[in-house]
């Protein structure tokens, strides 16, 4: 049994008459990329925000690296890195200055250059947030989430709105961070992203987890149940065509 780094037990959240998260439990292992999948409004973000201490937990328990989130929000904040959906940074500071400042929020002196290198933005160190492309912004957000050398990195829909190249580039960055020993929990509504990137996925709908396993296992189970696609499986998709024509490598807007 691998080390459990995040343990979620019977987590619930209710807004007025909407049950956003309805009694979910799951565990995340050390150094895995764990995906929470689901359509919009399934409760993915609410789940993450409760774990991240941003939202009060109605009932249930969350343990992060052995810390109970409800009782130790401050300690939990110190040990996690968070990329929020559609959040931004001060615009009048350079990327380098932002990372240094964020490091200081954790009482750390960070090597901003190294962090920027980690997400392949080293040549943008003097740029402002507003001068970055969508993919660059997301990569910078990840760098900012790494300033405190977190145990677990939470990414909320990191690739939403990115073009295929930028998305693949971000996947490479996420894989590299995992290979350096971090655990990553991400949400997405792109199935091919979950399939390519995640070791295990939990599929959420209407606030419940309706499946949790390795993507491969989930697909095999579906096929075993006698499922066949109505259309013949194609050996390439339009996205493959697009990438073949425009090139796999990332083109950054300058």
């Amino acid at each position: 049994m691998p080390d459990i780094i995040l343990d979620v037990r019977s987590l619930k959240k209710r807004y007025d008459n909407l049950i956003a998260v309805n009694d979910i439990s799951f565990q995340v292992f050390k150094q895995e990329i764990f995906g929470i999948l689901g359509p919009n409004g399934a409760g993915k973000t609410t789940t993450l925000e409760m774990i991240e201490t941003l939202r009060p937990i109605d009932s249930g328990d969350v343990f992060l690296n052995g810390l109970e989130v409800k009782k130790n929000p401050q300690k939990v904040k110190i040990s996690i890195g968070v990329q929020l959906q559609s959040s931004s940074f001060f615009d009048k500071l350079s990327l380098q200055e932002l990372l240094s400042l964020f490091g200081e929020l954790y009482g750390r002196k960070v090597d901003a250059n190294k962090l920027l290198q980690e997400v392949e933005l080293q040549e943008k160190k003097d740029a402002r947030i507003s001068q970055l492309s969508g993919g660059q912004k997301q990569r910078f957000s990840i760098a900012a989430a790494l300033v405190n050398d977190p145990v677990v990195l939470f990414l909320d829909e990191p690739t939403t709105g990115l073009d295929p190249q930028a998305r693949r580039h971000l996947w490479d960055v996420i894989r590299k961070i995992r290979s350096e020993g971090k655990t990553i929990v991400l949400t997405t509504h792109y199935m091919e992203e979950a399939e390519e990137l995640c070791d295990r996925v939990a599929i959420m709908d209407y606030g419940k987890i309706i499946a949790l396993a390795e993507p491969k296992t989930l697909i095999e189970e579906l096929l075993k149940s006698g499922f066949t696609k109505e259309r013949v499986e194609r050996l390439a998709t339009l996205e493959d065509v697009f990438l073949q024509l425009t090139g796999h490598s990332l083109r950054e807007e300058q």
Partner: protein
Amino acid sequence: MRLKWLLTVAGLKMFFREKEAVFWTLFLPLFMVVLFGFVKFDQFGTIQLGLTDLSHGKNEELMTALRQIKTFRIHDGTEESERKALEKGERDLVLVIPESLQPGQPLPLYWNEAKPQEGKVGELIVQQIFDDIALQSLPGVKRIQVKLQGVKSRKLTYMDFLLPGIMAMSIMQMGIFSVAFVFVDLKKRGVLRRLKVTPMKPVDFIFAHVITRLVVLLLQATVLIGTGLLFFNLNFTGNPWNLFVVGVLGAIVFLAMGFSIAGVSKSEDQVAPLANVIVLPMMLLSGIFFSRANLPGFAHWITGWFPLTFLADAIRSIAIDGASLKDVIWQILGLGLWGFASVFAAIKLFRWE
């Protein structure tokens, strides 16, 4: 403490990188001072006297005497054109000298009924000139002549009234507008949310923002007072420390109001009207540009409780009259009361999300 300091430095950096904001913050108050300084609202205006001489130079003595009066600005013209100008409000008085002056026959002096002060003073001067001429032809008459004796006094100018008022107004503007707009923007763009997942204490962040603005205000006050002293003969006799104390107190009141507005607003579109509802009445009625002394009774009473009135009066007393903190204790108490109320409101209303 280190983090507070670092956040303050970052705040100042961000402020000074916004070039337009720096320009307007430092020079808009100055611009207003210069503008209103030139208009000189305090001066008793010169009297616009329309003059029509139908006597063809027979009354030279009279004309010379009239032209020597500095209070008059004389416009020569025909009777018709001058009376038209009077009706349009371009003249205060019109004097028509007939072909021949007959003692004992009243000489009409037309006056603009909308300007009774100018009319009365003008009438007295004209009458005096005629009396002088009449008296000179009677050498036997002894009369008592008053003689003006100049006494050196502290000459307070409109600038001495205006500049401290503008200082107070700038503190209000900075407190309310800058905090409300910046925090609503940070809230809207999710920056505050992002900060919330870090272990940073919110109070450190607020502290840094308050200090940043105090530093900018200090700079603004220096520019204002410096310009006043250099170019406008500002009668600055104040104790800078007293000024600082009152200024900081005022800044706290208005910064807290800014945070309250940011708390209840979801976007900049909501900030603007709300901030203006608070700012505009004070700007116009707190005795910034014009003395409150002319306000009617009830308005005078109610505007006396405005926080900007307390602040402007205190700054003016300290800067120009050299008042001590004890002398402005009423204003300090007033600001303190407002401070409590607005800080309480800010704590209740301000939200990070």
